[in-house]
């Protein structure tokens, strides 16, 4: 099918850009392209990848979730508080709590979008400030530091398993699960249908509102999981962790070719979009450019990516209108 070929070429293009980027850096700094260095880049980008995958599902259903970074901060603080006050509780249980708390926050977003039909950008703009405000209320602005956390709590993401940290393995597992979910299940098909043409989806028997609700729960649960991973990895929890990270997540999706208009996007795209930002972030200190350049570079990358993607998305049916506009 023509559509599928287009998708494939888009991902191929992105992969090529990624290889060129790494290759270009490696020409002058060969150490950057060594397996262990690339492994570090992947590990460092794992949280962004997981969040981008959650955001991808939401964006494909024609919504947006701006609350993911606040969700991450709140769940991270919740598990850090529990761990600090009751170090005996096993980490596996804390992860379940983190995912549930995140899912609950996603469900709140989804509920407003589903049942009250409030535009997702408004809902998640509101919950973005509310969730982060609650983090402050929980501790009155105090930090939870490394020495208050139990050793096993901090160790899990860093623990080595067959040559890679557990954090990386979690990201890999979620990439696998999401790939199956999006391409091999009825739900995955439904998300594309809902984003591609909501009206047609209603007539084919898809519950548009519920599909969006479920998408928000997926995004929320993954943000919750990342809340634990972030706090455990950096061994600190405070109000401002991951502040503004929601825009990085959206940026990763946009660079990955996920159309903000809904209905278009893939797991491979989201992962590569996140890796693209991750490579830039990790490469700047290596090639001796001030980290202050990172923001402008990722901004330029977003604009170029969306311009390239829009070119590929342009449909022929609209040509008449374009002509009329020129007059």
């Amino acid at each position, binding site marked *: 099918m023509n559509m599928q070929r287009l998708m494939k070429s888009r991902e191929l293009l992105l992969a090529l850009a990624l290889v060129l980027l790494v290759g270009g850096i490696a020409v002058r700094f060969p150490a950057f392209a060594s397996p262990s260095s690339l492994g570090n880049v992947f590990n460092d980008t794992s949280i962004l990848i997981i969040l981008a995958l959650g955001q991808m599902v939401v964006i494909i259903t*024609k919504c*947006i979730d701006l609350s993911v970074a606040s969700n991450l901060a709140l769940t991270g603080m919740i598990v850090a508080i529990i761990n600090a006050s009751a170090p005996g509780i096993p980490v596996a249980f804390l992860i379940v709590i983190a995912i549930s708390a995140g899912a609950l926050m996603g469900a709140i977003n989804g509920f*407003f979008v589903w049942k*009250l*039909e*409030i*535009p*997702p*950008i*408004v*809902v998640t*703009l*509101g*919950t*973005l*400030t*509310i969730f*982060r*405000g*609650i983090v*402050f*209320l929980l501790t009155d*602005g105090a930090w939870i530091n490394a020495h208050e956390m139990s050793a096993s709590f901090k160790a899990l993401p860093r623990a080595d398993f067959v040559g890679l940290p557990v954090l990386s393995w979690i990201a890999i597992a979620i990439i696998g699960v999401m790939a199956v979910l999006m391409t091999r299940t009825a739900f995955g098909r439904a998300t594309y249908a809902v984003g591609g043409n*909501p*009206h047609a989806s209603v007539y084919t028997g898809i519950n548009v509102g519920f599909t969006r609700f479920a998408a928000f729960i997926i995004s929320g649960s993954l943000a919750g999981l990342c809340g634990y991973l972030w706090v455990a990895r950096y061994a600190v929890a405070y*109000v401002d962790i991951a502040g*503004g990270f929601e*825009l990085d997540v*959206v*940026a990763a999706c*946009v660079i990955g070719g996920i159309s*903000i*208009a809904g209905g278009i996007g893939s797991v491979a795209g989201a992962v590569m979009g996140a890796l693209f930002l991750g490579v830039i972030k990790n490469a700047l200190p290596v090639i001796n450019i*001030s980290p*202050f*350049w*990172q*923001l*402008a*570079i*990722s*901004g*330029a*990358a*977003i*604009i170029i990516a*969306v*311009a390239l993607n*829009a070119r590929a998305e*342009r449909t022929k049916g609209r040509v008449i*209108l374009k002509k*009329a*506009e020129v007059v």
Partner: protein
Amino acid sequence: MDGSARILPDRLNSGFSSLIKSWETLLLAVAIAVFIVNTFTSPYFLDPWNLSDATFNFTEKAMIAFAMALLIISGEIDLSVAAIIAIASTAMGYAVQLGAETPTLVLVGVGVGLACGAFNGLLVTRLGLPSIVVTIGTMSLFRGLAFIILGDKAYTGYPADFAFFGQGYVWWVLSFELVLFVIVALIFAIILHRTSFGRTIYAIGNNPTAALFSGVRVQRVKFVLFLLTGLMSGIAAICLTSRLGSTRPSIAMGWELEIVTMVVLGGISILGGSGRIPGVVIAALILGMVTFGFGLLNVPGIVMSIFIGLLLIGVIALPRVLSQLVKAKAQ
């Protein structure tokens, strides 16, 4: 959120009964309630100088919010406004280092604002890109440029007469910024509600294709609106820089979300096509008074933001909940 049929009447909001039911009336009731609560909770609230100080909470944001309102009514959005403030302020600081005087600084601020608005506008109207993505990109790009130029440093040493824009008073407690806010509000209200250009903005927001076939130059109007938003961001940058007396690359961080909140709270539909300037004015007053009232009670800023978030969702959810209840009863 999907194309529910909207009617475009010949006259908007005419008659007394629609006035009572209108969004502005609801907002005004909220504003009066906030005012009364503030008066009773703090003895310092009703002091003219305190109230005058409080207006600085919203004047700069509101000036951008008016332009943003027009843009959102036309179906677009600009998330890069705060970043435009950062880069315009950085440019002014750079000009100061080169020995520029106040008139030049104003030109630089306005010019950079217009240039950024034109950049956004060109990307959206010429390349046909979705504005939310474009402006997330330019938001990083513009602020990123400010970070590249300034790093962890700050520009200071603005000329003494430059302080007037953010710190000067026109008459007694009337600050220059407050007067500017009122003038800007009037200008935008006239543009939107009393000119044919304003009508075309509604037409574009309701149905861009129909507007196009009615002879409206959709892309040109949208470009002008982006230009206008850039201009207002430049003017806000002048006021804010003058008020703070210094420039850091993190200046006005997060304002874009507060401005969008102000616009949406003001009754402008985020889906485009409806909303009025008076609503935005009242929303600005509410947000300003809430921030000021909480400040007097020593409530931390982040707790205020919870309240603003709840206000945003609550005010939009409430009419929908009520109408659903009415529907359920009727059945």
